[in-house]
């Protein structure tokens, strides 16, 4: 991608971006404040800037007069950068933002995402060798001399062609066998599944279908389900889709789902809700591509222990009660149709093995994908989902724990929370002096809600600007209409009704912040307990891998400011994205890794936090921004001091009700 340079004046701040980058995003990256409240749809007309030099491409702008256009005014959000440009941000657009000069550039997690090359190094076991293989067989026609049965004939050919011994033929395939092989003149394709302990021929098709083969990788989350359609020939993801788990209407967390499952038809309802969610996503993905349903040969599904039980229709009730026992840790390959996922005949699925009741296959899958089980280095893997799970260790040992964080960072339990889909606010800056926001949404649409990365941004910005105090309470006495008091506490308006995509104000409330604070506190407390248990200082951890579905722009320094992540050298932090989905994807393609997953599930030790007397203390200690012990967050303390200085220099300090 060609790079171009964008310089913003009067700050004289320059940044290199890809040619074609949106100008407002470039400003966000350069940490130059431009008022923007419609998410980048060109609707609010607030982000006026003057292009003094260079070329930008702009969409039709009805918000500018001809006179303004002649002067070089553009709306930053509707422009893409086409060459090196110099942009002047007029005073009314930055609202006297003197603070911009002192602010540090943000550290986007995007740049810290593991690359394909890194995976190759981390996962030497990986090879393109999926658990199902299609064999195109040209069978010898039977004669009086060569009078083997149809089934034995297929086995003989598989042995001759691929050296496969002892293949078991699936019963439904036997039924199809006599008619099908004769109708296709003994020219057939047989799909063989390697189940680890046995080879099983699971499907027979006419002619040669071996060139088209696909599989499905699934992350079955409590709140969100994400899927990928993978081409087994190339190893590429050819389609992706995600949605909220249909089980949400029966309860937000695993505990309420388990309780629901004990009702009369509860388990069946939950199973069917999960199945329909997965099935709809598969349909969406197939529709997006030219892949056919019958090309799909298997699925790998990684979910927490409860999700796996519910999907398989296994009674999960004992997971919830002391001593917290799941029915199974390892799940066999089964026909997908057995649970109601009817893609084609002979499609098998496997749930990734779990470690314990509250550390499931999603974590095993993530640990697999992260390669930490191969690493010499002391590694901390953190999965931020409805449950926060952490794994500490390396190739020699792995210790895991789980804490209930709630679905807040996935957008549930937050008034205007949403997934990272169109119109979701994903990046936010708030000016320390004017307290006006700058927001960018997914797809540059008018804002309809806030996704995970946006929520982390909002909290960090509200905190740095002093709009929100350490307890997460919004100071409603500040001189801006953006903050106001309601019956349920304070709130801050990110976008006014007329700028939003819903015709309602998009706000973040005290109650939202409280839920987010609980989530971050649980996760941080879990991390601390894990480290304490092994008597390891956070500074001794060489690499911290973050997994979770936040959207694209999670900024790690923001996550540290709110105390979600420990205050460590940011170079140690890497983002693996949705680890559970990534692991599923890798396992779909490589049976070696399926075997590794079993090994990981077996080697991981589980630490039960519900009986840990220190957890509550750690949790309450973390129910504060960034933390009760500010000494553990030295860089945050510095940034706070700077932000307070800036606010003081730029205008009246946003103090409380001074005397």
């Amino acid at each position, binding site marked *: 991608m060609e790079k171009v340079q964008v310089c913003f004046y009067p700050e004289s701040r320059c940044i290199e971006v890809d040619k074609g980058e949106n100008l407002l995003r470039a400003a966000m990256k350069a940490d130059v404040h431009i008022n923007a409240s419609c998410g980048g749809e060109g609707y609010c007309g607030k982000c006026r800037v003057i292009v003094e030099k260079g070329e930008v491409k702009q969409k039709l702008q009805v918000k500018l007069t001809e006179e303004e256009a002649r002067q070089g005014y553009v709306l930053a959000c509707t422009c893409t950068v086409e060459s090196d440009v110099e942009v002047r941000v007029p005073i009314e657009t930055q609202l006297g933002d003197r603070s911009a000069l002192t602010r540090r550039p943000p550290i986007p997690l995007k740049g810290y995402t593991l690359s394909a090359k890194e995976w190759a190094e981390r996962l030497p076991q990986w090879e393109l060798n999926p658990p199902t293989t299609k064999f195109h067989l040209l069978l010898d026609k039977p004669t009086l001399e060569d009078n083997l049965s149809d089934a034995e004939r297929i086995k003989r050919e598989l042995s001759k062609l691929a050296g496969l011994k002892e293949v078991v033929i699936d019963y439904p395939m036997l039924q199809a066998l006599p008619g099908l092989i004769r109708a296709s003149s003994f020219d057939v394709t047989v799909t063989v599944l390697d189940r680890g302990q046995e080879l099983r021929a699971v499907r027979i098709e006419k002619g040669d279908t071996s060139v088209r083969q696909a599989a499905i990788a699934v992350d079955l989350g409590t709140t969100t389900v994400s899927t990928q359609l993978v081409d087994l020939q190339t190893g590429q993801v050819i389609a992706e889709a995600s949605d909220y788990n249909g089980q949400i209407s029966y309860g937000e967390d695993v505990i309420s789902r388990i309780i629901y499952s004990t009702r009369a038809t509860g388990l069946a309802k939950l199973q069917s809700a999960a199945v329909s969610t997965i099935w709809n996503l598969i349909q969406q993905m197939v529709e997006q591509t030219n892949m056919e349903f019958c090309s799909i040969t298997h699925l790998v599904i990684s979910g927490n222990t409860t999700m796996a039980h519910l999907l398989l229709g296994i009674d999960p009730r004992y997971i919830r009660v002391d001593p917290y026992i799941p029915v199974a840790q390892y799940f066999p390959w089964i026909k997908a149709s057995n649970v109601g996922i009817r893609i084609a005949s002979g499609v098998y699925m496997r749930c990734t093995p779990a470690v314990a009741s509250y550390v499931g296959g999603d974590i095993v899958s993530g640990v697999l994908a992260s390669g930490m089980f191969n690493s010499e280095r002391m590694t901390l893997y953190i999965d931020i989902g409805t449950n926060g799970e952490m794994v500490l260790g390396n190739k020699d040992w792995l210790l895991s724990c789980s804490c209930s964080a709630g679905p807040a960072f996935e957008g549930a339990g937050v008034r205007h929370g949403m997934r990272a889909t169109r119109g979701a606010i994903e990046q936010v800056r708030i000016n320390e002096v004017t307290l006006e926001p700058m927001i960018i949404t997914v797809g540059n649409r008018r804002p309809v809600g806030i996704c995970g990365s946006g929520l982390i941004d909002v909290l960090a910005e509200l905190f740095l600007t002093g709009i929100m105090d*350490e307890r997460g309470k919004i100071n409603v006495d500040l001189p801006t209409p953006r903050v106001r008091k309601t019956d349920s506490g304070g709130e801050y308006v990110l976008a006014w009704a007329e700028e939003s995509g819903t015709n309602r104000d998009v706000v973040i409330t005290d109650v939202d912040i409280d839920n987010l604070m609980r989530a971050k506190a649980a996760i941080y407390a879990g991390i601390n307990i894990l480290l304490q248990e092994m008597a390891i200082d956070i500074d001794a951890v060489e690499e911290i891998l973050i997994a979770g579905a936040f959207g694209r722009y999670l900024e790690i320094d923001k996550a540290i400011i709110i105390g979600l992540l420990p205050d460590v050298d940011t170079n140690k932090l890497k983002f693996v994205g949705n680890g559970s989905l990534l692991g599923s994807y890798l396992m779909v393609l490589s049976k070696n890794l399926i075997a590794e997953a079993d090994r990981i599930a077996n080697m991981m030790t589980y630490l039960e936090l519900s009986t840990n007397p220190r957890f509550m203390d750690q949790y309450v200690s973390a129910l504060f921004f960034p933390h*009760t012990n*500010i000494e553990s967050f030295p860089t945050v303390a510095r940034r706070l001091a700077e932000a307070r200085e800036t606010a003081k220099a730029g205008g009246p300090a946003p103090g*409380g009700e*001074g*005397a």
Partner: protein
Amino acid sequence: MAFELPKETTDSKIREVTLGTGGVKVGGENVLPFYTFEGIMPNRPLIAVEVYDDNPVEAWSPVVVEPIKDVIADPVAWARRAAEEWGADLIALRLKSTDPKGDDKPAEEAAQTAKAVADAVSIPVIVYGAEDMDKDGDVLKAVAIAAEGKNVIIGPAMEDDYKTIGAAALGYKQSLVAKTPIDVNLAKQLNILLSNLGVDVGTIIMDPTTGALGYGLEYTYSVMERLKLAALRQDDSMTQMPLVADVGTESWKAKEAKAPASDEPQWGDENKRGVVWEILTATTLLVAGADIVMMRHPEAIKTVRKVIDTLMS
């Protein structure tokens, strides 16, 4: 060579807080409670004698009412009696009359009572509101204004009203008590919030919430002990405030303290029972680390004073 007791010493110490204007100080110790063989306790723990402004004659056990029945309706006379006859170190005036669930007296009226009490005695005065989140702010602000220059200790500032009470203390140069529900972290958090508000941490006293004997005393003990350990062993500056224990009110809430002998004959002499309950609660919390104990019954006060004398000698 003679045996020498090993000493655990520290450079950390509890902040010394000046109360009132007569040179009374609390805190300042660099050792765990009464470990005077390891360091110093420059100020002995203080007894603050409770005075109520709502004539609690009906509500209280006759055992407590008896020694004060002639002054119970007059907070000024009551405070004088405590200061002159019982040797109170402080007065803990509780403006219960302002309680919206009770008499709901206006803030100004209560503030005048507070001023009258502060004027009548030479010892420092703690002024507690009715512990009502909505009303305390107004009441204590009025008190802070009325008693300007007296350095009274207003409180308790809690999570939901710390801003108004903190601002009142800050604006009119009074000290304050920060109260949190039996948790080390919450206590520390409130201190951070108050200091962010601009309140001088050297004017804050912590009330970690008191559970009386039989009613959670062990929790309070543990929290006080942990606060002291954090302050002295970990040099945690946000826990280095002196502690106050609300002994009188909590002890006399206990059924075992106030039940008449006619109801519970097997519990023993009702004239001693409540007093002993208060003494045990107070001495336990002194050993846990209380720098101030707020007390009620003159006999209990007398005994606890003796305990402090002995431990300090």
